[in-house]
């Protein structure tokens, strides 16, 4: 009986925590769909605010998507070789490199952004282009791609597999194409989802790096919250949720399956 009580208490606690996390999301969504927030749901549901957001901020939304995809390409190009090097040589040096890579994540986005501004702020062409924001995003998301791919590479005993392929005559490039890349597909996919999701939601750095012509979704959100009607802010948030929800769901679906494949016993075979 004691066990049951304990179970129920913990369950109840957990449900409360869930409510704490989910209720505000629901509230925000609802606020974006009601005609008048102050009046509440009695005022009716409407898509008017969402349409206003879409019309007014379409550019911002597309820029966010564009930067996220560009960020993905950059992290793939920079991150996969890095993960490969770290997987092949595990030494004090490789650990130091990992530490270094993680710094833009450990250090507050504010600091990273400020550093970029004081160094490159003078290059007005660079400073006012979306590339400036892209750089910040890549710095922040790169360690996630590297770590994701690295985890998979470590799990497959990369060195022995490469030796096996080499003993069969495969040159380095062949090995990379035939053995390394196909086997880290899962890591690349998980890393990609992470990078895109983080880039879409990045604010701390982007707020300092942006200009009125290079606004991303979170920056637009901050603007909307500060200056516009609550309903528009909520509708904007709703659009954000709509964009990020599929990514988050995909991330979760990806993290869950830990299938332990059945390995048949050796008998006569």
């Amino acid at each position, binding site marked *: 009986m004691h066990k049951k009580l304990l*179970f129920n208490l*913990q369950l109840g*606690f*957990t449900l409360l*925590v*869930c409510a704490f*996390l*989910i*209720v*505000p*999301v629901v*509230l*925000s969504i609802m606020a974006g769909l009601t005609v008048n927030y*102050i009046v509440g749901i009695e005022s009716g549901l409407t898509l008017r605010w969402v349409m206003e957001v879409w019309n007014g901020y379409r550019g911002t939304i597309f820029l966010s998507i564009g930067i996220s995809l560009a960020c993905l390409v950059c992290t793939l190009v*920079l991150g996969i*070789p*890095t993960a*490969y*090097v770290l997987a*092949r040589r595990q030494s004090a040096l490789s650990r130091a490199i990992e530490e*270094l890579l*993680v*710094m*833009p*994540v*450990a*250090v*507050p986005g*504010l*600091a*990273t952004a*400020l*550093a*970029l501004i*004081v*160094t490159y702020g003078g290059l007005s062409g660079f400073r006012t282009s979306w590339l400036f924001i892209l*750089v910040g995003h*890549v*710095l*922040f998301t*790169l360690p996630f791609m590297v*770590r994701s791919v690295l985890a998979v590479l470590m799990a497959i005993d990369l060195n022995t597999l490469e030796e096996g392929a080499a003993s069969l005559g495969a040159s*380095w490039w062949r090995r990379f194409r035939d053995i390394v890349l196909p086997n880290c597909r899962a890591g690349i996919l998980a890393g990609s989802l992470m990078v895109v999701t*983080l880039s879409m*939601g*990045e*604010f*701390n*750095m982007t*707020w*300092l790096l942006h200009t009125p012509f290079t606004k991303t979704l*979170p920056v637009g*959100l*901050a603007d909307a*919250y*500060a200056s516009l009607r609550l309903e528009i802010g*909520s509708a904007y*948030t709703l659009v954000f949720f709509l964009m*990020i929800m599929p990514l*988050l769901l995909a991330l979760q679906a990806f993290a869950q399956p830990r299938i332990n494949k059945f390995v048949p016993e050796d008998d006569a075979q």
Partner: protein
Amino acid sequence: MQRETRRLILLLLPAGIFFSAFFLIPMAELFLIGGTGKDGWMAYTAIITNKNYFNSLLATMGVAVLTTVVTLIISGISGVFLQRNKFPGNGALVAMLTFPLAFPGVVIGFMVIMLAGRQGLIGQVSNALFDEKIVFAYSLTGLFIGYVYFSIPRTILTVMAAAEKLDPKLEEAARSLGASPWRVVTDVIIPGLKPAFISAGAICFATAVGAFGTAFTLAARINVLPMVIYTEFTLAANIAMAAALSFVLGAATWIVLALARTAAGGTVAAAG
């Protein structure tokens, strides 16, 4: 194998160049700029010597510590509970709890306003019940709630991963020696989760210290370091001080995470 080493260096070059150009050099620049203000290199001690900065440092640390403690307790209980009890709906609860993982601080700030702002849900409920509107979104309390909100998803994942790796045989051994369930928790489970708690707690702390978006949305009146840095930079145009403060903040955060990493072992991830 010389060939191999050369190849590895070549592969590392793109990321290396990018990182040096856009992070290492700028950080060095930041450090140098920090010393060019009217206080010179003393700017780096300003965080302690200047009363305003010091107060904001205390406020920042205070919120961060409180957030960490509360989050660890919540994640500890729920995380271990969900990991060890399989029941229908378990997956859904986990999904709901880890959902807000990538929400930016601004959105969370907005939701705090929805809950506890002037038109917030809590205010309306309390108005109906007690005839008094409870509004706390625009203070450190609101900030605290926001920080706990985005810290729970991150820490709960770490706790659950660690709980999965706990060896049930240790608990069975303790029970066979006569330990009560409570003793098993304090003597076997919590020590077993200690590394996870340390690393999750460090991330939580570091993220809370450096968080900006939430404070920004909840209004510039809140006196935490990231906001102070921001105002120095934009409103006061005091670039040198902003640089110095943010460099100190960055260094301190990184040190906390590095210490936690050595104490706990394994990789940690912080996010905005």
